[in-house]
């Protein structure tokens, strides 16, 4: 990987990695640190990582950095994280449904949340998500479907509450 290839990865993937992390942990500064660490590792291993797999490599590193961060910072509640994130993110739609969905997603466990984010935000396939999160394809499918059903139930419940 040349310097130009690396900088192209920065332009192409840094926003996605940052979004993925900040949606998961809900803290911008920590998310920036994690993103920076991921690109540092990519730079160190630039001779080993192919340019085509740089995105997957970056998300893999960032995801495991995030897991470590979550384990170290268990005191923070996901709800608080959501409240903190809510004020910073630039949402394309400020609909009430979206806010309810975001609240429901924050109530998922980290694995389910990551599965949903990787699938919906980044569009990864089950296989790619499995590679990033070190899960099998069938596990990704089962866990993700389970998360969707949980979200559906929460959405129905919240809509009934709001109604």
């Amino acid at each position, binding site marked *: 990987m040349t310097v130009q290839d690396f900088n192209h990865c*920065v332009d192409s993937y840094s926003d996605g990695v940052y979004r993925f992390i900040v949606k998961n942990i809900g803290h911008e500064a920590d998310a920036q640190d994690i*993103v*920076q660490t991921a690109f540092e590792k990519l730079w160190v291993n630039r001779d080993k990582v192919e340019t085509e797999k740089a995105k997957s490599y970056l998300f893999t590193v960032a995801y495991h950095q995030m897991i470590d961060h979550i384990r170290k910072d268990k005191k923070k509640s996901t709800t608080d994280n959501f409240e903190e994130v809510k004020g910073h993110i*630039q949402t*394309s739609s400020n609909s009430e449904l979206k806010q309810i969905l975001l609240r429901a997603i924050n109530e998922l466990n980290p694995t389910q949340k990551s599965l949903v984010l990787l699938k*919906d*935000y980044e569009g990864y396939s089950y296989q790619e998500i499995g590679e990033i999160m070190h899960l099998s394809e069938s596990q990704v*499918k089962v866990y993700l479907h389970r998360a969707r059903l949980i979200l*559906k139930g929460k959405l129905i419940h919240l809509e009934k509450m709001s109604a």
Partner: protein
Amino acid sequence: MKINIQNYESYCLLYIDNELSAAERREFELFMQENSALVNEFNALQQTVLTPETLLFEDKAILYRYDEMEASLPSSFKQSLYREEAKVVDGYFTRTRIIGIASIAAILLLLLGYQFYFSNSINVKNDKENRQTNNKSLKLKSSKDSNNLVRVDANNNLENNTLTKHKSEIAKANGSKLFTSNNLPSLKETDIISQEIKTQDIIIENDVVTNTISSEVTNNLVSDKNAISINNNNSPILNNTNIPSETTENYNTINTDEHDRSIYIANFEIDGDKLRGVTRRINALFKRNKNDKQK
């Protein structure tokens, strides 16, 4: 697998996650058109999909890398910057050379010390002998001044008799009969004068005497108060003259084979045995250096 009422939910999720093939997607869409009652269920699952948001990482500048970061100097230029360690040039005073010079200096000092010691001991011996002869001459002179200065013990041995005889001969040679073994007559004025004139001769002759008789006899003659008694009350010369006290110390030649002897260099006392060890070591060092050079 055909889509039916039992497995449609799974197909719904796969359709939402875009994991169906094109044919499966068409089949699923056809199934949903035929079962419109399930559309609400599908729409509820469809709502769980997040719409992508625009969230930017603003500090991309800290992530960029530039060619300048990879810039490196050519190896030839780096080698021109290297500095070699300065070579240490051996000076004239190397370690072995310093040791050799120090050894020579030590030997010279030892030789000077020996020479000084021997010359000093010889001078002391000569001074002692001169002092003894002077004492004898003074005794002889005092015996002339007084009428009854010297009294020879009757029990003196043969050597003493010989000495007194020799003394009487000297006295006779001076023209007076002063010395006899049993009776010493009184001295006249002329005798005293003549004795003073020939003091040097007596001293010289007394040297002969002291050389001919044994040291033991000399000790008996000089130091034994039983053999020679001096009447100080009747001897003004002796009263007015500081006669050095006689000592019985004899200066013998140095026996270099004696291990316990002490050597004096100026005021310093040096153990002869240790000094010998030092000289032997120095000699061994020189021999070893010589052997090393030959190798």
